[in-house]
């Protein structure tokens, strides 16, 4: 009955109701019930893995994980798991595993059992080295998530964001940071006394582009993550901002201020040639590529207020098509990975800024957050989660939600954090 009700709730928006919000807390009412048996092998490593896997899965909002004290020993009869033990506990899946640790390596083996179908549905090995325990756990979480939900997991992806700290004299230091998708394993990519904004991933996850004010004016830089090698993308004297990498990694869309006004250009990275995409008296900025790379969306003030427009790159001299109509401020849009909709910043009638979603097939928007100053949404590569910036008691921090019900926050370990950017799949 519960299933039926939920189906109705989620089918209704396909009709014509104008103000139905996506009820994202509903998903978790009927989660996958799973048990994760402690992995055989080194107990400390097993506990570490278990905690990380548990967090990864809970963050998706799609799982209910059996409390450790309720776990049963694994009983095998005639080489077969005794499924009835787990059926009695109401489990949908059981996960078992083992850790093989040597001086130079640490490998994880795990199995997933479907309790209802009474069969093993997955048997996997992940190979790593001893300082990669978090990565091993994320790979395992993604395997579990994929086998059970049928959707690629994002635990092993990464985040970029900007950290700002102030010293005792209120002088700011800005850092471009890299972290695992759960906020752990933070690394500094760049430290500067001048602001850094708009980080953007290369599709292969090896490079980042961002805006740095280090020369006293906004400029776009590309930096190689592994080597730290960095360069300014264009040697123009004017302001350059808002970089976005094309899905094939060959182009960077940018905002140039050559005539004093923000206009969108596409730069071919191979030879740095520029193609002008907009030519308007109004502001045009915040370009972002469609998943197939055949379109860009951007924010334009040409109607008198910021709205979202789409350009079809396959056409000769394409004309920008307005795609946001609700409200007087819609900006910083990006496509969902299957292009089924867009996520953007929307100003509500009360003047507050929220993250909103508009599906292509629908003629209304869904407002997904409710703080005051939500900004910079970035969609996970599987399209199931969004991370964005919030302000709480005057401090910027990151928050996220999954489209199936979970919400999470990532406060800064120090100072403030903002401008999150979710990487592509990295495994």
């Amino acid at each position, binding site marked *: 009955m519960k*299933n039926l009700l939920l189906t109705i709730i989620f089918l209704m928006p396909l009709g014509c109701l104008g103000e139905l919000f996506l009820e994202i807390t509903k998903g978790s009412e009927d989660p996958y019930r799973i048990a994760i048996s402690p992995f055989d092998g080194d107990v400390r490593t097993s506990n570490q893995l278990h905690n990380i896997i548990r967090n990864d899965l809970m963050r998706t909002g799609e799982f209910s994980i059996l409390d450790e004290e309720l776990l049963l020993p694994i009983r095998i009869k005639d080489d077969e798991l005794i499924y009835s033990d787990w059926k009695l506990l109401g489990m949908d899946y059981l996960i078992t595993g083992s850790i093989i640790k040597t001086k130079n390596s640490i490998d994880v083996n795990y199995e997933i059992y479907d309790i209802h179908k009474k069969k093993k549905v997955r048997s996997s090995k992940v190979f*790593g080295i001893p300082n990669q325990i978090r*990565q091993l756990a994320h790979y395992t979480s993604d395997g579990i998530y994929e*086998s059970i939900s049928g959707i690629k997991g994002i635990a092993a992806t990464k985040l970029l964001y900007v950290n700002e700290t102030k010293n005792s004299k209120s002088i700011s230091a800005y850092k471009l940071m890299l972290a695992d998708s759960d906020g752990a394993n933070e690394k500094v990519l760049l430290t500067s006394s001048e602001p850094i904004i708009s980080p953007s991933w290369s599709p292969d996850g090896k490079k980042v582009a961002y805006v740095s004010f280090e020369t006293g004016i906004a400029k776009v830089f590309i*930096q190689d993550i592994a080597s730290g090698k960095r360069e300014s993308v264009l040697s123009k004297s004017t*302001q350059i901002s808002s970089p976005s990498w094309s899905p094939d990694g060959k182009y960077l869309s940018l905002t140039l201020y050559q005539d004093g006004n923000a206009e969108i250009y596409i730069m071919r990275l191979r030879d740095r040639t520029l193609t002008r995409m907009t030519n308007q008296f109004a502001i045009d900025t915040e370009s972002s590529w469609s998943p197939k790379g055949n379109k860009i969306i951007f924010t334009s003030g040409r109607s008198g207020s910021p709205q979202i427009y789409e350009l079809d790159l396959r056409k000769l001299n394409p004309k920008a098509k307005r795609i946001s109509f609700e409200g007087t401020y819609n900006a910083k849009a990006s496509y969902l990975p299957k292009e089924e909709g867009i996520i953007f910043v929307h100003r509500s009638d009360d003047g507050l800024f929220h993250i909103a979603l508009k599906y292509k097939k629908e003629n209304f928007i869904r407002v997904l957050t409710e703080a005051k100053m939500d900004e910079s949404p970035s969609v996970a590569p599987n399209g199931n989660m969004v991370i964005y910036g919030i302000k709480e008691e005057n401090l910027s921090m990151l928050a996220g939600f999954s489209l199936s*019900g979970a919400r999470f926050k990532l406060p800064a370990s120090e100072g403030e954090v903002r401008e999150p950017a979710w990487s592509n799949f990295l495994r």
Partner: protein
Amino acid sequence: MDEKNTMKKFTNSFLTISTLLLFSACSSMQVTEESVADQSVAGVSLATKSTATQAVLANAVVYFEYDQFNLTSKSIQVLKGVTELMRNNSKITISLEGHADERGTREYNLALGQRRSESVANYLIANGIKRNRLITKSYGEERPLSLGSNNLAWSKNRRVEIK
């Protein structure tokens, strides 16, 4: 289980294509082997350098309305004084640094700050100051003068600083 999986797709508002993939994934046991990717990271630290410019026209600041970049009559009074100073000191070059309040997106605010800076430049040019004596730029919402999240703080942050 299948019924439950189907339901999940609706809760995720996902297309049915993922459901189909799921069914095929369930039909036989999946066996995988993978190695964790190497993740070396090199951090870069930029040498601190002062970007403070010499204050020729200290405290010349003009303010703007929310979402606007047109000059107010009060701004024009300030700019008349700046024009006078520029005429009397024909060698100086000034930088017009546009700023926005924290509301709205960062890149749009960077562009808005630039428009404010250009508004000031256009006024000065219209009053006989040469374009090559003016540097327009924007910090968007990145350098607020006042840190609060209220109307008073915001009104102080929507500005062009003339340096």
